[in-house]
């Protein structure tokens, strides 16, 4: 049975509790007398619950599943899971104790002093070399100088709220691996027109870049900067940063020149400064 727009409208109002008096009574009578209408309302009710993150109630059960869950095989697995959990907790506890058992109660720090001396010497040598070559900074120094991860702030509305909040939290806490996995999952089904799509995608690229997966990061930035998006210049900026991180000063220079030539304004001052120092 096919329903028309008017019935759908009535179903909506019914489910939202907007039908009253005579109209409500008539509709309830219809529901009782037309089984298909009853089914239709049930699915729509479930859809509403689904998208509002409410549990989908299931009245019936499944004999086969029940039998399995009560079987010895399932019981054995249950105790295996408990065993794995306590081993995991044991391990986590030992790790925690280890890190707090240092004399000063802090995590043991890496002794960086000898390395710092060596690095300073290297830096001086490098600086001498670079300044003598072209009077500027090396690409990765420029990257370190200009790259700053801005906190992610997503629009949270609707059924993906929890996961968006989790992504924001992980990303802002610099847990890029977790953030990247969650973002990948969300992006799989999110339409490009979604409010958060561009920011999420861009942040996925930034997370990749932070984890040194420059290839993935660049393919994200490249897709975004070539698309017809309002914020595409942001992707240009990160694409250039990723080249600097890679130590590819030549291509970074080319990209900046092209960007400025076509009149790009986002981070214009920064890019001009970088260009001077490359």
């Amino acid at each position, binding site marked *: 049975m096919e329903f028309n727009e008017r019935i759908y409208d009535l179903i909506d109002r019914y489910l939202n509790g907007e039908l009253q008096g005579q109209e409500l009574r008539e509709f309830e009578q219809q529901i009782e007398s037309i089984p298909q209408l009853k089914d239709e309302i049930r699915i729509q009710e479930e859809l509403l619950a689904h998208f509002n993150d409410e549990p989908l109630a299931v009245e019936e059960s499944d004999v086969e*599943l029940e039998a399995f869950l009560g079987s010895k095989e399932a019981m054995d697995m249950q105790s295996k899971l408990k065993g794995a959990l306590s081993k995991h907790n044991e391990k986590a506890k030992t790790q925690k104790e280890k890190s707090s058992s240092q004399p000063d109660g802090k995590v043991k720090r890496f002794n960086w002093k000898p390395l710092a001396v060596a690095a300073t010497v290297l830096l001086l040598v490098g600086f001498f070399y670079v300044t003598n070559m072209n009077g500027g900074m090396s690409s990765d120094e420029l990257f370190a100088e200009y790259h700053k991860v801005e906190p992610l702030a997503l629009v949270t509305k609707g059924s993906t709220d929890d996961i968006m909040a989790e992504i924001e939290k992980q990303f802002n806490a610099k847990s890029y691996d977790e953030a990247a996995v969650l973002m990948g999952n969300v992006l799989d089904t999110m339409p490009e027109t979604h409010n958060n799509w561009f920011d999420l995608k861009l942040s996925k690229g930034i997370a990749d870049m932070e984890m040194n997966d420059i290839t993935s990061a660049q393919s994200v930035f490249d897709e975004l900067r070539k698309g017809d998006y309002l914020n595409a210049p942001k992707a240009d900026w990160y694409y250039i940063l990723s080249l600097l991180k890679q130590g590819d000063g030549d291509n970074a220079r080319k990209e900046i020149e092209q960007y400025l030539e076509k009149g790009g304004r986002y981070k214009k001052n920064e890019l001009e400064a970088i260009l001077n120092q490359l």
Partner: protein
Amino acid sequence: MQRHSNSYYLEGLKKGSDAILLEIYDDFLPLVKRFVTREKGTDSDAEDVFNQVLMQLYARMKVKEFDIQSTFEGYLFTACKNIWRRELNKKSRMRVTNQAFHEQVSATEDGARAILEQEKWELFEEKFTELSDNCKEILKLHLDKVSGREIMERLGYASETTVRQRIFKCKSSLVKKIKTDLRYRA
């Protein structure tokens, strides 16, 4: 973070390999703990949820030869989210009735129902992703109870009537997709 392929974890779980089970806890329990504790739960709630989800997955693989469609991590995270929501719902029902909550169903029946609920959830998600991007966007707003007028303004439709027509078209297509799928038990 997922360090191995889906099949590595799934096979490990199916065979009951102690080493891989431990890796599953090490790799994914922290993420679930963070989620559950943020959603009014405790660490031990999170452990319980996590165990339930692994048991579910095990039963689904054994009884239904089920294979997951997303990443293993993505599956665990959404399934844990669903189970936790279910637990919260049980707790609030308990408060409403204002008496000790007498579970009418046995533990195995409740477990089986939880699996069916998860299957239904996956079916709805799957059918929703089959819609066009435009349908997804307008339906999401509509099901989030955003008014027709606001949808019109946000998505740049000419009139509320057009919005209503579009919602009708998208929703009836979604309902049809769900109804005609054999997995949907009407």
